């Protein structure tokens, strides 16, 4: 047996798993999106009817608006927060490891637990946040109970968990050659100039990666939104809407069509970001 064939044998279990658990479900999902399947009944092929119904449904646009608005604000906010935290803990002071651990902890906590804790933090009457505001003589908003404050509530949660990307930024910061900073120091560059002309350009590949992952994660927001909701339809994110269609209303065909639309949206945004890469991602310049 040739050496290359032996190699294929080694990856065969993965290939089989990939075909059964990835390729087949994708093909099945394509078919299901064109049926009226309700999970517990028979499926009939209905062509593009689900897609037509989705584009005529005001709730779809509302869910898209809620999610899109969140994505536009949460993605830059979380990237900036994580970057600032990484810059702050990127030194060798004694005990800095403790701070790094503290900042990284939100990313290892279960999403359900975070949602439950934030339910209490954002409680309008006895919540930590409003209690703190009261100390300064301020009256806090009703957070998740007020349609106007649902989005800010979710942004606060997003910022709290933003340092999940901390170690990626830290690794990238450590990768920046010291000589660049030394040269800049000799040339008389200050801290801000070093950040502007060395750190940020060198971090652009990581910023690009986090931007793409941020887009995917923002559009797939589910756990805390499903648990906490929000006043009226302000807490109905796209994935919550999709889940409701599938498992509360038993419209699996419709929900699968929604999943395909989400896939196209995420793919489109990723392609746009990828196209802009040549203008701002340092590592890709030739």
């Amino acid at each position, binding site marked *: 047996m040739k050496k290359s064939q032996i190699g294929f044998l080694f990856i065969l279990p993965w290939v089989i798993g990939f075909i059964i658990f990835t390729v087949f479900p994708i093909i099945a999902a394509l078919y299901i999106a064109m049926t009226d399947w309700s999970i517990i009944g028979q499926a009939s092929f209905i062509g593009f009817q689900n897609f037509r119904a989705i584009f005529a449904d005001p709730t779809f646009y509302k869910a898209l608006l809620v999610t899109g608005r969140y994505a536009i604000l949460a993605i830059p906010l979380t990237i900036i927060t994580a970057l600032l935290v990484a810059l702050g803990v990127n030194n060798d002071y004694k005990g800095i490891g403790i701070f790094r651990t503290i900042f990284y902890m939100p990313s290892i906590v279960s999403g359900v637990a975070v949602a439950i804790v934030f339910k209490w933090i954002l409680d309008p009457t006895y919540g930590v946040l409003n209690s703190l505001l009261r100390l300064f003589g301020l009256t806090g908003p009703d957070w998740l109970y007020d349609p106007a404050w649902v989005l800010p509530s979710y942004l606060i949660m997003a910022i709290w968990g933003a340092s999940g990307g901390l170690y990626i930024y830290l690794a990238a910061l450590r990768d920046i050659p010291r000589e660049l900073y030394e040269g800049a120091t000799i040339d008389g560059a200050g801290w801000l100039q070093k950040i502007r002309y060395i750190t940020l350009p060198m971090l652009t590949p990581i910023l690009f990666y986090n931007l793409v992952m941020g887009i995917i994660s923002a559009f797939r927001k589910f756990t805390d939104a499903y648990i906490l909701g929000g006043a009226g339809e302000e807490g109905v994110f796209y994935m919550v809407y999709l889940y409701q269609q599938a498992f509360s209303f*038993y419209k699996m065909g419709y929900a699968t069509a929604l999943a395909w639309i989400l896939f196209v949206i995420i793919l489109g945004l990723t392609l746009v970001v990828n196209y802009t890469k040549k203008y701002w991602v340092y590592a890709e310049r030739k």
Partner: protein
Amino acid sequence: MRGGISLKRKAARRGIWLVLLVGLVLFAGCTGAKKEKTTYTFATWAAGEELKEFSAIIDKVNREAAGQYQVEVLSIPSDYYVKLATYIAAKKTPDFFWLTQELIAKYAELGAIADLTEMFKGSQVLTPDQYYPGVLRSATYNGRCYGLPWIANPLMVYYNKDLFDAAGVPYPPATGGWTWDEFIATAKALTRKAQDRHGNTYQQYGYIVDGWPNIETFIWAGGGDIIAENGVDVLLDSEESLQGLGILQKILKSGITPPYREVGSLGSNNVWFEKQRVAMFMGGIQDNFEVKIAKMPADEQFRIGYAPMPVGLDGKAHAFNWTASTVLSSKLAKSKQAYEIMEKITLEFFKWKIASPISGEVGRIVEIAPMKAAALETIPICLNQARSANYVPEWNEINHHLWLKLYNAMLNDPDFDYESQVRAIAAEARALIANRK
């Protein structure tokens, strides 16, 4: 001779063929005959202690079957309906399973559960006329019965006698007859500043609404409904339904209930009653406030009173009733044995929890829950007032709109223009029903 031998051979051959043919027919007959199933699965959402009690009931039924059949328990303690749907999609539908009333119509429409009407009517053991009518309706769709309800849990008004005494407010009648106006007036009299045992002042409320009781309670209070009995007409925007929602708005505006944003601060609505922050609570007859209060420190305990639901504008009191039914997989629609097993298990369930959904069993309530003795005057009235909505396959979607766009909006803003919103939801409901196959 030759001709004789030839004839004999022919006859022998024919004989062999005949034997083979008869054998084949008999063999086919034997293999084709459907043997009665002997092992059944019963899916339940019960978990923990409830599952142990459930399993004990199934064990008892199995013992009495003496090997004739065996029922196995399939416990699905979380994500019950998602997992159940997955079982059905995988053609592994449990033979019997519990189904909440809201989904009976949906599962019936999709052909997942058996129509029990004929077997139910023909039964000598458990017949439709034994059930409280309002309870049985919860398992009915398009005039056909799809489940055997095994529990009844209609609403009644629990009230704190100590808070009534402190405010000098007379108790509501234990046998009913009070109106919604009287209910609101009573709640107003109980809404006042109060002091706890440490001398701290707090706001005491007469009543609590936070999405519970469900919106049907108020719509029925006006004499209206969401969907008509025919399962097609939408009554949500009828004058009566709007009047009922007017009662809800009156309650929300009157200040007799804590603001919606505050309710979550104590965890859930029932805690407000248990902590004596509200004087009246609409709960199912099964709610175990008595047990919880008995476990509290002596100086936190209080006396509970019971009253039926207030009388609505149609002159009737309607007690929303939540019922679970045992249903039969549609693949066993013709199995008499399966139906009989289900019937047998259902009869055992009647002895398990309160309240039994069939009439004449009120006495059993005290055997199961002795602390409910003081409510025995009220409970039979509530059982007779028990009512469920006219559930249709589109119910979950309609109800979702009702909660998000109407009830939630009213709770957040007591001045909310509910009338125009109701009309919009009614139009959506009509469109959904019109698309029914």
